[in-house]
């Protein structure tokens, strides 16, 4: 697309938005800086009200920033909003279709509003329908579609003109686990098969973890951390190595505590739980140390922190609207 390969697809510089309300000014986004490279899948992770949607609405020209600037798909956001619009797709959080319209009508109209001729629009609509498993729903009224189908139609509407960059605002909210997994497959396909750059927001940790090359964590309008899912998890909490040692737990703690790389060793219910920088590398020397001390190890497990732990550590609060966070996941 328009962006040159060496240029980021999105570059925000001090981009901010303050809303004026009766009770005073509310700073929804407090001047964020970040870049997204071409063909990256980047997730904006944060609780509701953190500023994710506001940032995406600014970058997609729907909302004027009150501070800062941005380049989107090679076009300046303030000087060339129409250029931005031509090159991006945007899938809003709350849906985008008239329930009385037919799938086909909406798709073809949308493609035509992007300047495509009737025939080309028709062809693209069919193509995107096939890609998103909407193949035979063209002539159906949208109100007769299931939630998952309707959401895929929203995504199709954002992609029908073949943009190089697509914004997905909470793509899987409200979907059952099966529809969500299905949508994830399609989102991965966008990058892998079409080379599309994807910028999505989510408040699902698993979603960010499963889809994103890189995650920006946003809270109260500020980006508080940035990195690959692995980097973030590693950076915050380190890994946990759990040795099952039966009655020797207390002695095992004595052996392991203070060894290089060990942050903490806690005996717990027949095990000793050791926090280390990197579990894969740290576990074996610890194992040998226990062996040398004559402590038999029944089993060993390395657990990695979830993004929920990361979020908790970074912001001091858990993601709201979340089902109880899953425990440490064995890896």
């Amino acid at each position, binding site marked *: 697309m328009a962006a040159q390969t060496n240029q980021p697809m999105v570059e925000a510089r001090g981009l901010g938005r303050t809303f004026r309300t009766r009770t005073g000014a509310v700073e929804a986004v407090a001047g964020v800086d970040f870049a997204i490279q071409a063909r990256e899948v980047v997730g904006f992770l944060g609780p509701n009200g953190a500023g994710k949607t506001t940032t995406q609405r600014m970058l997609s020209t*729907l909302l004027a920033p009150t501070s800062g600037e941005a380049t989107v798909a090679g076009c300046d956001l303030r000087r060339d909003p129409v250029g931005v619009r031509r090159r991006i797709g*945007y899938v809003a959080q709350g849906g985008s279709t008239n329930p009385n319209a037919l799938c086909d009508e909406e798709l073809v109209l949308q493609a035509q509003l992007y300047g495509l001729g009737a025939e080309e629009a028709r062809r693209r609509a069919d193509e995107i329908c096939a890609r998103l498993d909407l193949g035979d729903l063209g002539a159906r009224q949208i109100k007769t579609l299931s939630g998952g189908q309707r959401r895929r139609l929203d995504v199709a509407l954002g992609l029908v003109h073949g943009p190089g960059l697509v914004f997905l605002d909470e793509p899987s909210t409200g979907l059952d686990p099966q529809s969500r997994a299905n949508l994830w497959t399609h989102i991965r396909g966008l990058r892998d098969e079409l080379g599309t750059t994807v910028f999505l927001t989510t408040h699902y940790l698993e979603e960010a973890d499963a889809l994103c090359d890189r995650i920006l964590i946003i809270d109260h309008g500020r980006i508080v951390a940035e990195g690959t899912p692995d980097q973030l998890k590693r950076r915050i909490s380190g890994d946990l190595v759990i040795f099952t040692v039966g009655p020797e737990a207390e002695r095992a703690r004595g052996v392991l505590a203070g060894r290089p790389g060990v942050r903490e060793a806690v005996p717990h219910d027949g095990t000793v739980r050791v926090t280390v920088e990197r579990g894969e590398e740290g576990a074996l020397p610890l194992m040998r140390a226990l062996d040398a001390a004559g402590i038999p190890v029944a089993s060993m497990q390395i657990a990695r922190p979830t993004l929920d732990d990361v979020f908790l550590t970074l912001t001091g609060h858990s993601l709201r609207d979340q089902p109880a966070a899953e425990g440490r996941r064995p890896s």
Partner: protein
Amino acid sequence: MSAWREARLVFRQQLRLSWRQPVWAVLALIQPLLYLALFGPLLRPLTHTPGFPPGSSWSVFVPGLLIQLAMFGTMFVGFGLIAEMRYGVVERMRVTPASRMALLMGRVMRDAVVLVGQAVLLIAIATVFGLRAPLLGLAAVLVIVLLLGISLSSFSYAAGLKLRSEDALAQLLNSLAVPLLLLSGILLPMSLAPRWLYLLSRLNPFSHVVDGARAAVRGDFGSGSIAVGFIVALALAVAGVAVGTRTFHRESN
């Protein structure tokens, strides 16, 4: 011109949606038809009252009804836009490079077409009741109706986009509709009014439009009323489109 193309695209889609539920366009005709059948006959004995305009009671009443149809048929289209905003359709279109004016005008064109269709139907039925009018006059009235429709539907969309709430829009429209109706001379000609009321009615642009429509139906092409009515309707249309486009241009929050 790409804006014109985009407006036509939106217009076609809107028309398809209206066509899918024709019941609303037909229901909108029930009110004027009730006025025609149940109120129109009351004017008959008034034709000899001093101050009553020349012509049969139908040629006085039907033009008023047509203007009423234009006003009340299109004044409420903003509700449809609020529903579309809630569905996310408006935002989906705003994120395309399509001209903001086209997004508005496509919808306004649909409303205008539906309105003119209703007006033609109303004239046909009024003819059965006894309306007699020159074709040229009827054509002039239809043009005026069209302009009013463009104006009010644009204003209504602007209000809907701005207020974003059905409750607020209903309050606004109700507070405007009654004084505009009473001071327009639609139901009874303002020539019957005491002087202060007549003068007050002159401040309401719709009263001039109603006078113009009556002159056209009675075939009084020599009077200036038709021109005045037309110019006022045109000015309202231009103002409506300007305000509507501006509102569509502005960011949504």
